[in-house]
């Protein structure tokens, strides 16, 4: 990342704004009546330059790297903010790595100023055959698609993987939203029916497998960061509750059996945060950059989901109600576990990398 911004300082400013603009009450209210994304919050983020974070300076961005992006995603995870930032981070990475000059000039400024909202296909998605004529395809379960203005889809031309960038409102494109238990993100099935794909919509990587790995690394770090932020917020909120809730004439936070569980959770989160920060801080070309990102993603998302579960239990009855916050983190945490590779998929890949080392 740029030498000019300390990620700690960045993280503080992210937390400060979100604390004011997306306090827990809003997160709880949103979970009961969600929409596609929190538009006013998104606009404020854009106004503060957050959507421009990893976009290169030449295209209206701030040109920061994954450490800054991780700090932002951690803050958004802590707030359980319903904004499609993952799409922006991934699209900026995709265009930065493989976009033509024309594509960057056309697409990056809109991502930077928040006027575009991107959804980016996941590794397992079936590529769209692009061998001539108009295109028809169905891409199920695309994260962020219902809230997106810009879709980045996997394609294949003449047997060679590529990407295509399509406006969500292009002729022949339709998006059917699928409700998620995590109300802070959206999922949709994208259907292309007789879509004309111009040559300039194709993003052709020199090394498509390396591009996939790059995007997977960025996604893994962003999601792991989101998870750790959520886990820390859920646990901190639970500890606060344990300090005031009384049963049997004592605050429940004085019961040793609960204290020991909380202590283990806290230690696990400290360890997990180290993994995220380390993975985010590695240069793209570091030997273990992908390994450490995937390792962090599988470990942190699992750890946080487990802790979020116990936050429900530690709250007792109120933890079972939609009016308290723990369920929001549990649901978001469960989705984080699955996005861009479930644990089993990632562990198989990690084992491959460890064997090859």
């Amino acid at each position: 990342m740029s030498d000019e911004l300390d990620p700690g300082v960045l993280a503080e400013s992210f937390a400060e704004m979100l604390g004011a603009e997306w306090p827990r009450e809003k997160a709880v209210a949103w979970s009961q009546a969600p929409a596609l994304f929190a538009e006013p919050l998104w606009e404020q983020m854009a106004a503060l330059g957050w959507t421009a974070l990893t976009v290169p300076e030449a295209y209206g961005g701030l040109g920061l790297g994954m450490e800054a992006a991780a700090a932002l995603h951690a803050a958004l995870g802590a707030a359980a903010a319903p904004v499609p930032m993952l799409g922006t981070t991934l699209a900026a990475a995709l265009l930065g790595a493989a976009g033509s000059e024309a594509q960057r000039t056309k697409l990056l400024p809109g991502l930077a100023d928040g006027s575009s909202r991107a959804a980016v296909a996941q590794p397992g998605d079936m590529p769209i055959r692009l061998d001539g004529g108009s295109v028809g395809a169905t891409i199920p379960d695309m994260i962020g698609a219902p809230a997106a203005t810009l879709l980045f889809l996997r394609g294949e031309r003449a047997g060679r993987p590529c990407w295509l960038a399509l406006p969500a409102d292009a002729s022949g494109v339709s998006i059917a939203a699928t409700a998620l238990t995590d109300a802070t993100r959206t999922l949709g099935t994208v259907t292309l029916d007789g879509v004309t794909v111009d040559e300039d919509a194709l993003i052709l990587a020199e090394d498509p497998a390396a591009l996939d790995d790059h995007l997977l690394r960025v996604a893994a770090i962003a999601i792991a960061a989101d998870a750790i932020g959520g886990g820390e917020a859920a646990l901190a909120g639970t500890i606060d509750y344990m300090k005031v809730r009384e049963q049997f004439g004592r605050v429940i936070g004085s019961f040793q059996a609960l204290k020991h569980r909380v202590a283990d959770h806290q230690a696990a989160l400290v360890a997990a945060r180290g993994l995220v920060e380390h993975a985010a801080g590695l240069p793209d070309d570091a030997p273990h950059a992908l390994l450490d990102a995937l390792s962090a993603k599988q470990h942190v998302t699992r750890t946080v989901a487990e802790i979020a579960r116990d936050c429900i239990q530690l709250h007792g009855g109120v933890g079972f109600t939609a009016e308290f916050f723990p369920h929001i983190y549990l649901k978001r945490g469960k989705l984080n576990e699955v996005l861009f590779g479930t644990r089993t998929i990632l562990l198989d890949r990690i084992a491959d990398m460890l064997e090859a080392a």
Partner: protein
Amino acid sequence: MSRTFDILSKVGDEPAFRQEIRDWLAATVPADWRRRWQAVRESELKAIVVDWLEERRKVGLATPHWPREWGGPGIPFAYQIIVYEEFARADAPELDMFTISLFHTPATLFEHGTQAQKDRYLGGITQGADIWCQGFSEPGAGSDLASLRTSARAESGHYVVNGQKIWSSAAMHADYCLLLARTDPNGPRKHDGISYFIMDMKTPGIEVRPIRQITGEAEFAEIFLDDVKIPAENLIGAEGDGWNIAQSTLSTERGLLIFGAVERLARSFELDGKEAKDGWMRDVQLRREYAAFHAELQSLRLMIRKLLIELEANPDKASPTLPTYIKLIWGPFLQRYTEFLLRAEGIDALKWQPSIPGTGHSSRLRMNDFLKSYGWTIAGGSNEIMRNIVSERILGLPRG
């Protein structure tokens, strides 16, 4: 469909009894009931549940575990078990909304109620469709129930009740409430001075506010009580005896509720494996995890059956510890199993669907079942309380 069924006449011949229920269920439970119940609005839910209760009533199985003295069929315990087994096996809808009506109310009234109370209220369940709820917990008295603060002030011929209750299942549908309130605020211990009432939910001063759960449903509610007048004849037992009576209310479901839940899960477990035959059951690790859950599920089923057999032999000599162990194991098991399914099924398991009433903890909507499993580890004595009970009362470790 035109065949008539006479299930109760088969008592004395277990296989025939079982077969008759099975045939009746096959003829009566619509194959698509889950879809239909899922589509029903909350306001219309009661009607559809009552319809199913009426179907059961036609064959004498509205209250299968009730003795004849209460107006039930009075069938032996072994046959009650068969009923619950077959209902689970056929995936017949559960009557969640009637849980208090079917279990807690009769147990309480039969042991502690006056003849007038029995006469007046049991019939509303055996012949009508009265829904009862329970007004025990309060916002400040959950695990620590004895510290409840809702007050009942005696006046001439009635009590005036003020306070707030919470976690009251089906309260928004309820006709009556089993209410605990403090009649004497100056008892030597906090367990003292609590009394037990029947409260008509139509009495002025009662406000019921549903509580939205983390699954999106609202199965329970808060009850706000503002100068609610309860006639003195609605006191159950003596004034100040409420705590003792409540203990028997809470312990009298005799394992059948959890038995039903576990049997339903067993059915679902089998289906889960079959349906994943070409899916996650092809993954060596997930397949082993699934196989490992089999032992845990079996161990629970065995514990519950053991408890039921002991209860049938002699309720007074049945193991007092088994119910605690069962409760302590069942909730976390359900949590781990439903969490396994989330992992095994990936994104599909995280999609939202409206919950399906009547499916208990085996709706097979993965995230819903996972979330709902916390009902078992939190409600009715949290697992933390269960661990205190095991370590102190059973194992004899000293209080901290």
